[in-house]
């Protein structure tokens, strides 16, 4: 295994985790609609318990995504988190609120009442996908930062910091870029689309599933429009390439070239898009009275595949995955921001555990979802 292989391998792992995270944000998507899907306290409790059996997967995937990024590309972790401080803090605050909301919302002694925590779930349901999608968009649009490692050698400085965000907004400036908002909103509507498909699959309440199938159209249409708009923009825009010496330069249609140069990714992208469309179509086309329940699986797998391809386009094929709009040469690539060969190689062996982890997750998921969630189960068994 060469150092270059390990760098590409770890970008693949980080991209895969990111893709799985986007799929698992069906939890956020369904939560964002908890008050419109469940019209009664019992109905809302059913929706919350449905996502509540899966929320930890999303949360853990987010944490592991951060940890894997830190371990494999520490300069990104350092530059982005330390620089885009407010963007990441808002994301984290919303997830902190989500983590306690499930357990606290329906318990005796909850002095804020169930509604407060359900609103927290709605807040996380909107902000989480929107801002995470926006953060991913900065891989393609660029961010306002500079990095100068030799600053650490300035022992006379009060604090010899090596990375610096170009303005005082610390990450919020990304939201002023309309294309960042487009992708952020696309991810948000995708989360809601997957959320409705999940609820139709998971919940045994005809009224809730019926409302979910109505909202499916209301979420899928904006998602598709926004996603297609962003994809077209991406494939036609200039990108950030680097050469063998590490020098960064602007290349027109860089991401289109990445797709064509790596044609298996093009095939995967088509497969992913078709699966997402199939998952949506199979629920939309069937009549109201007969739900197939099956849309979540092709849509979910398609989401993972599509997002994986997009993230690979950002970092593979000599592309700077974290471009700097302040100084092009300070853009981050998988070569100049990664851990040492020793660390990447050590972590490679650890990553071989991932299939086992996925296997027990799938096994337990099937056990917990062996039956649809009913009001009876909420009323008589352990529930949030």
């Amino acid at each position, binding site marked *: 295994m060469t150092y270059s292989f390990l760098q590409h391998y770890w970008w693949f792992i980080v991209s895969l985790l990111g893709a799985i995270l986007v799929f698992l944000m069906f939890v956020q998507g369904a939560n964002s609609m908890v008050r419109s899907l469940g019209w009664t306290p019992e109905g809302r409790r059913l929706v919350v318990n449905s996502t509540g059996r899966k929320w930890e997967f999303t949360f853990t995937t987010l944490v592991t995504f951060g940890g894997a990024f830190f371990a494999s590309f520490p300069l990104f972790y350092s530059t982005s*988190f*330390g620089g885009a401080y407010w963007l990441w*803090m808002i994301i984290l605050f919303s997830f902190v609120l989500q983590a306690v909301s499930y357990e606290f919302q329906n318990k005796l*002694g909850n002095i804020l009442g169930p509604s407060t925590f359900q609103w927290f779930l709605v807040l996380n349901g909107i902000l989480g996908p929107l801002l995470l999608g926006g953060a991913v968009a900065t891989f393609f649009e660029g961010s306002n930062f500079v990095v100068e490692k*030799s600053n650490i*050698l300035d022992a006379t400085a009060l*604090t010899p910091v090596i990375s610096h965000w170009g303005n005082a907004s610390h990450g919020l400036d990304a939201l002023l870029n309309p294309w960042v908002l487009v992708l952020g909103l696309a991810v948000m509507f995708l989360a809601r689309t997957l959320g409705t498909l999940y609820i139709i699959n998971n919940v045994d309440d005809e009224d809730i599933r019926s409302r979910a199938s109505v909202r499916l159209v209301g979420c899928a249409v904006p998602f598709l429009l926004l996603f297609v708009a962003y994809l077209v923009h991406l494939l036609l825009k200039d990108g950030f390439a680097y050469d063998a010496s590490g020098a960064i330069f602007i290349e027109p249609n860089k991401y289109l070239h990445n797709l064509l140069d790596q044609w298996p990714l093009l095939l995967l992208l088509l497969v992913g898009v078709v699966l997402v469309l199939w998952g949506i179509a199979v629920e939309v086309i069937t009549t109201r009275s007969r739900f197939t329940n099956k849309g979540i699986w092709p849509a979910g797998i398609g989401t993972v595949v599509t997002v994986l391809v997009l993230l690979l386009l950002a970092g593979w094929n000599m592309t700077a995955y974290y471009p700097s709009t302040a100084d092009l040469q300070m853009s981050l690539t998988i070569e100049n921001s990664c851990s040492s060969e*020793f660390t990447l190689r050590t972590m490679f062996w650890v990553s071989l555990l991932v299939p086992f982890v996925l296997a027990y997750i799938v096994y337990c998921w099937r056990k917990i979802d062996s039956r649809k969630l009913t009001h009876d189960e909420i009323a008589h*068994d352990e*529930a949030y």
Partner: protein
Amino acid sequence: MQNILLNIDAGTIDWSRAQFALTAIYHWLFVPLTLGLALIMGICETIYYKKLRAAESTQTVGFWKETSKFWQRLFGINFAMGVATGIILEFEFGTNWSNYSWLVGDIFGAPLAVEGIVAFFMESTFVAVMFFGWKKVSAGFHLASTWLTGIGATLSAWWILVANAWMQNPVGCEFNPDTMRNEMTSFADVALSSSAVDKFLHTVISAWIIGAVFVVAVSCWYLLKKRHTELAVKSIRIAVVVGIIAALGAAFTGHISGQDVAKTQPMKLAAMEALYNGGTDQGLTAIALVNPICQPDYANEESAPLKVEMPYFLSLMATNSIHGYVPGINDILNGYTRPDGTREPSADEKIARGKQAIAALQAYRLAKAEGASDSILTAQLSIFNENKDYFGYGYVTDKSQLVPPIGLNFWAFRTMVGVGCLLILFFGLVLMLAFKIPFFSVFTRRLLSAIGLMDEAHADVHGATRMPVWLYWAAIIMVPLAYIASESGWLVAELGRQPWTIQDMLPTWAAVSDLQAGSVALTFILFLGLFTAMLGIEISIMLKQIKKGPKES
């Protein structure tokens, strides 16, 4: 070379330290109960499973099932807050300590990634089966899920403590002058260092104390109210055994950790002991008049005033010899001769060598950029390599910066050890009274009766229902005391490390992110408000759930 002038005020450094301390202290309110209750609820469910397999009576099986579910319900209320406060810490290395994240991320990032892959997924997957899978999986699989939840949480503790131990004793790495960062050279050295093993055992065992004292306290409250007596009696019996083993284990592992600190962090030991001037035949300070919040004048005072010490004990515990040499704060600052005859340089010398290392690295990089000859590069690297062990000292401007807050360390350590000793006494007493242990139980009861602490009528019987009422109340009071001791341990660990984020390698002011003090102050206040509100709600829910009690089977 681009040299960016960064206007970061000193306020950012202290606000960043305060924020990390706040989030870590809150996180550590919830994690020990998760780890400790996980063990006890695992034992309860194992008993249930054995009774089920042995086809015992429906009542017995039902009792143990409901007992397990009761403790799992309380576990669940607390678990959420542990998860919520934990995510902040994971990302806070990046948000507030970006220099740190780059300079040591090659080593530090790996344990965090392994923690996610191996531990968090195990915990989060099986906790869902534990909570919601009673009717969906077999009893055996459910039992396995309960244990795997606890094992996942414990594995998570392992990896984060590996990371923290590496901050205290950075091993298995080398500084790379070309990439300008520290790089891992041995994963085994990092993951299995003596510091990591000591810290893991001590921390997890201390968490079992929290779980045990919590269960005993809740059970004693039920006995006071004469409710759920059977659950209380049987839970006390399980928890007190866990508690006494854990309390004794914490004392033993604490001693081993202390010896590790004596070798790897002598300044921390000196601060904990308020040992201004060391030497051989050093006594262990039981108590002294040390101001908890003001730095004493260690340079001019011989020792802390009104010092009461146990002769020779510090030398014995630190070095296994009553004549062992233990350096004091002034010895470390002024330099001293180690027992093996080698010389520990003075702080001034370390600072000078650190500056030489930084200058040599700067010269090396400039020379390399200008295409200088190999001989010049080798010469600069040679100077750097001779002095690189003191690289971090190059950022120090005054040797007083090298002394951690003595008062806080001193009192936090004594609080931890004092309450730890009290816990051994407490669990020992409850053990004698809750069980019928030949000779000891009767002796304890008769003794308590003789000194008026126990009703004579209870002197010849055994069982938790026959404990004196004051002991039930003591059990409840032990809960906040145990938490204070637990947090005090972390204060010693992290305050004693100051000013280093990585011991001897990277001081705090070279580790922060480029942020305005106001931004960090704002997030500090938001976290304080949010976590305090959530803590209040958790306590309210927990008390209501305890008051509600288990469902009668």
